[in-house]
């Protein structure tokens, strides 16, 4: 079949994602529409070839790195197919899974859509929309992520504090199942009945199965999302291509805030920063003024992250534009506020100034971004941290190819976050390994990253992560808030689920995919036991 090509060295870049998890494959396909996607999936089913779906390869858990068989690369399915206004007034955009978030943002911001093939209703609906009126809130750090990939791991990003994760903004999905049949699911319409699942298929038939008899953690979700009477859309969001392949998404758009303000404050130590974050979250602390404004995002940078970026600034030309960290800044917190009236900003800044002084911060050295251009600088600073980690990991891989990105995104509730942070700090400090901590402190999932330089350090890093998975499980948290378990965090998923529940999840997967062809190696460990190679 012309659609399916034999792997060759020219496709080497499709063997790994941003985590640098190196995979292997025999075939690769680039379908450009759902019919072609169906055709590829049917071919795989007929020939018993496993397949791994890929979006933009920006994942951090190896979910898109193939584990043999065929690479189903969806980057050519990158069109916006139409727009509707739902009965509740929400604008919903129909998109293909390979569309990148940055393309979507640009289209909405500038009202620049390729409308060829759109139906009249879509064109009529678009007519009334102003540029920049609507936005899609999820904002994973990597704006080149694909929408299918974001749904597949339920990506969150910084602004999930205010807007929630990708799941909250997906109204519908079209899914190609393992045998090539297609189902269309709409939130609110297609639900489980208790634990009974019945998917309506395009060919008029139905697919029935049963959900496992347990619910996944209420704090962010790593991998599968399970609830009684759940929306069936949610079964596929986060399941990383193990139950079916997303061929189309119906995205819910929101009215865009007219103004975004970013504030990066520096602190003499972590405890001051933690007190500031508690106050931003509205948690009362003795002696600290109450802060009533809800932030859209709250991001943290520890001392090592600040030092690492400032060091990189001296060697990477692209980083020369980064602002200089104040000399006494040992860690930093970025908070973003969204609003519609520019007059809202000054009262917020006045409250923040008082708050900063009370927790040991300094309003004189606090950066404020008041417009798009200034905000770009603060976001560039935020983005420079994972970018620098990428550069360091790439460098370390030259000496030890087994090294991948070693980053976690475990989440706990507000009550347990400080405890978890202190565990991170303690375990990393005694490890002797190079590390940085940064990320989404507003939602209690910062990213400790271990920058392993050798196989021994890499393995030591994994052991630390497994210990944390047990700590987080004890606190009722989740081992992955937004990156998905993919291949790198299967062991952690097993720690979180336990062997019995892992077996139940395997049975669920088997009901959808009896031959085990979809997303091999993602999330699940075989029969709840860790194999040697796991």
């Amino acid at each position, binding site marked *: 079949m012309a659609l399916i090509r034999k792997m060759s060295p020219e496709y080497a870049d499709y063997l790994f994602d941003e985590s640098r998890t190196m995979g292997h494959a025999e075939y690769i396909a680039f379908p450009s529409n759902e019919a072609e996607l169906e055709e590829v999936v049917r071919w795989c089913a007929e020939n018993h070839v496993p397949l791994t779906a890929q979006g933009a390869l920006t994942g951090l858990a190896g979910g898109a790195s193939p584990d043999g068989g065929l690479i189903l690369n969806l980057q050519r399915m990158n069109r916006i197919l139409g727009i509707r206004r739902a009965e509740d007034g929400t604008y919903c955009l129909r998109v293909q899974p390979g569309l990148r978030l940055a393309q979507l943002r640009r289209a909405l911001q500038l009202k620049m859509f390729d409308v060829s093939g759109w139906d009249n209703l879509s064109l009529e609906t678009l*007519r009334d929309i102003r540029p920049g009126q609507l936005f899609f809130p999820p904002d994973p750090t990597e704006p080149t992520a694909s929408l299918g990939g974001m749904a597949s791991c339920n990506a969150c990003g910084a602004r999930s504090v205010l807007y929630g994760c990708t799941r909250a903004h997906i109204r519908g999905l079209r899914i190609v199942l393992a045998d090539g049949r297609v189902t269309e699911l709409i939130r609110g319409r297609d639900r489980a009945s208790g634990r009974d699942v019945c998917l309506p298929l395009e060919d008029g038939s139905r697919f029935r199965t049963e959900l496992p008899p347990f619910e996944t953690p209420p704090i962010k979700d790593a991998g599968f999302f399970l609830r009684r009477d759940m929306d069936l859309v949610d079964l596929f969001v986060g399941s990383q291509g193990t139950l079916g392949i997303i061929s189309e998404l119906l995205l819910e758009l929101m009215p865009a805030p007219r103004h975004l303000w970013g504030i990066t404050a520096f602190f003499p130590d972590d405890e001051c920063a933690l007190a500031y974050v508690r106050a931003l979250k509205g948690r009362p602390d003795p002696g600290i003024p109450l802060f009533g404004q809800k932030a859209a995002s709250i991001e943290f940078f520890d001392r090592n992250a600040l030092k690492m970026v400032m060091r990189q600034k001296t060697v990477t030309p692209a980083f020369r534009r980064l602002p200089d960290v104040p000399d006494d800044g040992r860690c930093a917190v970025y908070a973003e506020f969204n609003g519609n009236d520019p007059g809202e900003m*000054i009262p917020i800044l006045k409250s923040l100034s008082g708050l*900063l002084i009370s927790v040991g911060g300094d309003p004189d050295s606090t950066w404020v971004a008041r417009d798009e251009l200034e905000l770009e600088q603060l976001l560039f600073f935020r983005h420079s941290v994972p970018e620098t980690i990428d550069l360091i990991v790439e460098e370390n891989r030259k000496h030890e190819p087994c090294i991948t990105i070693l980053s976690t995104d475990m989440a706990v509730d507000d009550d347990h976050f400080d405890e978890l942070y202190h565990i991170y700090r303690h375990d990393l400090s005694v490890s002797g390994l190079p590390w940085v901590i940064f990320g989404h402190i507003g939602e209690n999932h910062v990213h400790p990253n271990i920058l392993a330089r050798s196989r021994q350090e890499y393995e030591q890093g994994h052991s630390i992560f497994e210990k944390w998975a047990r700590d987080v499980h004890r606190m009722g948290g989740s081992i992955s808030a937004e990156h998905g378990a993919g291949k790198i965090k299967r062991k952690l998923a097993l720690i979180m689920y336990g062997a019995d529940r892992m077996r139940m999840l395997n049975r669920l997967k088997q009901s959808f995919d009896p031959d085990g062809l979809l997303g091999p190696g993602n999330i699940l460990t075989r029969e709840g036991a860790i194999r040697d190679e796991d």
Partner: protein
Amino acid sequence: MKIDVCVKQVPASNETRLDPVTHTIIRDSVCSVLNPFDAYAVEEALRLRERRGGTVKAFSMGIPAAAGMLRRVLALGVDSALLLTDRAFAGSDTLATARVLAAAISADGLPDLILCGRMATDGDTAQVGPMLAECLGIPHVSDVAAVEDLTDESAVVRRLTDNGYVRLRIRFPALLTVLREINNPRLPSLTGILQAEEKAVPSADHADLRLDPVRTGLAGSATRVISSFRPVLEKKSEILSGTPAQQAQALTARLKSAGLITE
């Protein structure tokens, strides 16, 4: 040292877009910001003040709403600002704009140094700075990449040219237009913004500046805009086929015929 800096409010994006349904030009949704090139002029003014002491004052000709942009400049640490706003200034070309700025700067007392951004992102002319210097009868250096030696009477500046950099000493009072590479503009501090809120942004019109309205605005402009368009960058590509040796031969022949390489 007395330093003046000229700034302009521009649209955040200069991209012309067509509505995909109605095919008309979209005019809304673009907010106004400080001209990005002027941010470097403001930053350099603040840095020179940090080196030699003194004051920095910002001038802008624009609509009344540009006061908000000037307040933003004050938040960066500029000492004071003056907004030049008058219906009589509307439609000014670069010469008429330079006249208004020159009148305001003269009325305020000629500074040691005037800094301007290289150009504005909405007009791309790079003319106002040099014209302002001519109106004031002072020397100027454009495209300055660094202010090196600085005394109370003069500065040594590094200027970018097509063939590299030249070093020039310029006597004060003088005007410099600065490039992006001159510095890395700071972000405003929280304290700076709150302090700027308390400061006044005064304005002046043609009467305050004792300017004859026929020398400003559309009436005082030496040029007329007949039409405007976005320059289109054309790229053509051609795939050469054959063996690597044949491709190399074909490429060499193309480069020779284009005069890019010689025998």
